[in-house]
């Protein structure tokens, strides 16, 4: 079997593949991380360290709640997890051990300080332990202190300041991890750049509420009759992650490499982030659900894609989809489509008809005798709602209409 070269050079650090663990319970300690490396992950962002003498972490419980959509389990995951609750010494010892055992793999130390000296200590000790890079956690949504977690990530001055402090005390590359809990990520990322950041990691989890117990009338996860707005991740978060990553990539002022995060489960998800500008990929929620083994399919799938498409290096395709994003006000409205229903494949359920009747332009005709749907092209505005509700995946397609020669319902 031919294998593509999946290696990535990220801030001068070589990753044998772009797939990394993001800073979370999946990288809690050396034993777990060893198994992740053995499974094939290219890099690990270790669970966020802090200076245990300045702030004692106690995890709440239960701290997870999954977002289920009918029969589809685990579409998203809400967590009230904190940064590491182990001692700094233990974690540093683990990082040393991992670098000794896996010298060619990338170990990134995620750190969070509560003061200049905290940031300094964590940066120095990580570098001394052999960490290849640092990730500055400016984005933990559960960290309620004004001077920590996502509260920093919303304060440009603090981001710039703490990045500067870290950069002053280490020589390894530094990436700043962004919170999505903000209207525009670019000013914060630029602040990190001004502080000296070498790369941006995005996104951290989205502040959310996944569920409410309607009998007890309390949100979940319910921690002794109370709950909180905490971080949401997983497949349902991917569209938001894709948006932020593309914006970071498309910012000419920023021009920093990106470690892309947000709902990645498969090589297709990863590739989509790369096409929008990601250099490396970080994963947690999918590992929490399926285990480290999923990286095998990411590697094999992405490798096949590269070979099939004649791609020698991921850098060739990085951001190639991001450049096609334009302002919606500039869309070419002379280009219009109409839906085409394949009568052979139509199973006659009429879902397209219902949706078009009540949610679009009443352009579908449903023959109840033959149990077949068809498109009234004089009414079809080409919205494609029908295509998306059809339970047969390849039944409804679109046909481009030459609006110079043919009228179209969307133009009148």
């Amino acid at each position: 079997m031919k294998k593509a070269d999946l290696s990535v050079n990220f801030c001068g650090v070589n990753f044998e593949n772009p797939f990394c663990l993001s800073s979370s319970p999946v990288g809690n300690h050396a034993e777990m991380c060893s198994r992740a490396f053995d499974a094939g992950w290219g890099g690990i962002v270790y669970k966020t360290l802090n200076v245990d003498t300045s702030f004692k972490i106690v995890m709440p419980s239960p701290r997870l709640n999954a977002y289920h959509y009918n029969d589809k389990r685990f579409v998203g995951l809400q967590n009230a997890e904190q940064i590491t609750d182990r001692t700094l010494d233990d974690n540093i010892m683990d990082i040393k051990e991992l670098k000794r055992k896996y010298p060619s793999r990338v170990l990134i130390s995620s750190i969070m300080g509560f003061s200049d000296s905290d940031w300094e200590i964590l940066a120095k000790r990580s570098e001394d332990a052999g960490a290849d890079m640092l990730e500055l956690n400016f984005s933990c949504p559960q960290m309620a202190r004004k001077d920590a977690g996502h509260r920093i990530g919303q304060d440009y001055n603090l981001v710039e300041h703490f990045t500067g402090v870290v950069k002053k005390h280490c020589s390894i590359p530094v990436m700043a991890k962004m919170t999505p809990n903000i209207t525009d990520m670019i000013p914060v990322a630029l602040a990190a750049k001004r502080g000296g950041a070498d790369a941006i990691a995005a996104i951290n989890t989205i502040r959310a509420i996944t569920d409410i117990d309607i009998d007890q009338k309390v949100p979940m996860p319910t921690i002794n009759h109370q709950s909180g707005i905490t971080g949401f991740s997983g497949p349902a978060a991917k569209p938001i992650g894709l948006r932020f990553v593309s914006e970071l990539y498309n910012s000419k002022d920023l021009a920093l490499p990106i470690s892309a995060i947000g709902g990645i489960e498969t090589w297709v998800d990863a590739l989509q982030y790369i096409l929008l500008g990601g250099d490396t990929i970080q994963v947690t929620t999918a590992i929490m659900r399926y285990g480290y083994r999923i990286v095998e399919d990411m590697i094999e799938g992405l490798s096949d894609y590269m070979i099939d498409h004649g791609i020698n290096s991921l850098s060739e395709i990085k951001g190639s989809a991001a450049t096609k994003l334009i302002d919606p006000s500039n869309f070419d409205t002379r280009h219009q489509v109409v839906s085409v229903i394949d009568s052979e494949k139509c199973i006659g359920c009429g879902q397209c008809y219902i949706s078009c009747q009540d949610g679009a332009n009443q352009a579908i005709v449903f023959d109840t005798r033959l149990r077949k749907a068809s498109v009234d092209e004089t009414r079809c505005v080409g919205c494609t709602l029908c295509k998306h509700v059809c339970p047969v995946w390849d039944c409804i397609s679109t046909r481009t209409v030459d609006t110079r020669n043919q009228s179209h319902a969307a133009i009148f």
Partner: protein
Amino acid sequence: MIRIIDKESICDFKSMHPSMSLRDAVCEAERCLLCEDAPCSKGCPAGTDPGKFIRQIKFKNIKGAARTIRNNNILGSTCAHICPTDKLCEMNCSAMKLEAPINISALQKFAIEYGRQNNLEKLESSSGSGKKVAVIGAGPAGLSTAYELAKKGHSIEIFEKEKMAGGVPAWNIPEFRLPADEIAQDIGKLRDLGVIIHTNQHINTLEEVDKLKSEFDALVVATGLNKAFGLNVFQDAENVTDYMTWLKKIKFSNSEMKTSVANKRIAVVGGGSVAVDCCVSAKALGAAKVYMISLEEGDDLPADKEEIRLAQRMNVIFKSSSMIKSIDMKDGKVSLLRGMEIAWKEPENFNPSNATEVEGTDFSIPVDYVVQAIGTKPDYYNLFSELKLGPKSCFVAEGDEKMWASSGCTFAVGDVVNGGATVVRAVGEGKKLAEHIDKFLARGEI
């Protein structure tokens, strides 16, 4: 959702239909395509409207689903257990074109159980019309007619000859297919509406019928089929019985039957669902060998595919395309059946006169009991001479949909008109007749 045949439950005479968990119900409802034209609803003769109750389950309105079933079908639970869904609601299910049809009966059962567990309110009838209707026979058609009429505010009294209401589902369907409690719960809805059910009230004289006619504004004859057919060859044999007696005994004298059937050889004559029930029950009681002797074979067997699979699973021996020619008797009992295999002269015509014997296929089967499951006919038609009698001693149907018979204030419905059909069809016909009687009563015609 895999439909499992649970052999152990059958042998214990406990429901063979496991209840659906919330998880299974959510997943199954999620598969439903919520068709614009709901072929499932069109396929239900009783108008139970599965298209609606599945949608209600999907949108987390499970109590609403239970309400839909309760309002639309007096025997909702009974039907959920015994309906031949593959020939009705599930037959044109769109999901079948992608994978398997939606398991509608299981969802129906799930919604009903959910309603029971969550205190679904009792049905209330509209205010009294002052009109009184008598119904003879507390089987599916009679119960359904009574239910619909009671909902419309009429006073209903049902006269049932047996000690318990329910008709065929109550007496002749094995416990593993339909637990007695399910039909009792269904019938309970009638009592909620104030319907009076007189059990042990055998109306079998003209005087009694005339009395009902004088006391009530309308009379509904829903007496069903009571007389079992038998083959002449078995006349006077002690160990030959009909399916009604056989199934009733198994249902209500189970341990006694166990003693007499265990390790015995049973031959069941017939190829329909009832014959399968007789065979499977016998196996469940511990019979050594059970033969199902039928004229039809394979796909032509009138029994449902699911039921045939059940019989196969229970190791019933199919003696298909076979005809009994003669018997050996010993001490007044049949001891041996002698028969031959047959072929049909014309295709699709399963009348014995169309059969030819296949030479060299003679067989003999030693037996301890013979059960005849070859059909039934009405018994009380003489009491209602005002109704037009058609073939097979059934009343001739009228109206646009040919679902009931009538003359003056006498109406007939169910098997006594249709000649024997499914429970769900009897429910549907009862509903239609009730609509008609309601209009009739409103007109004030006598």
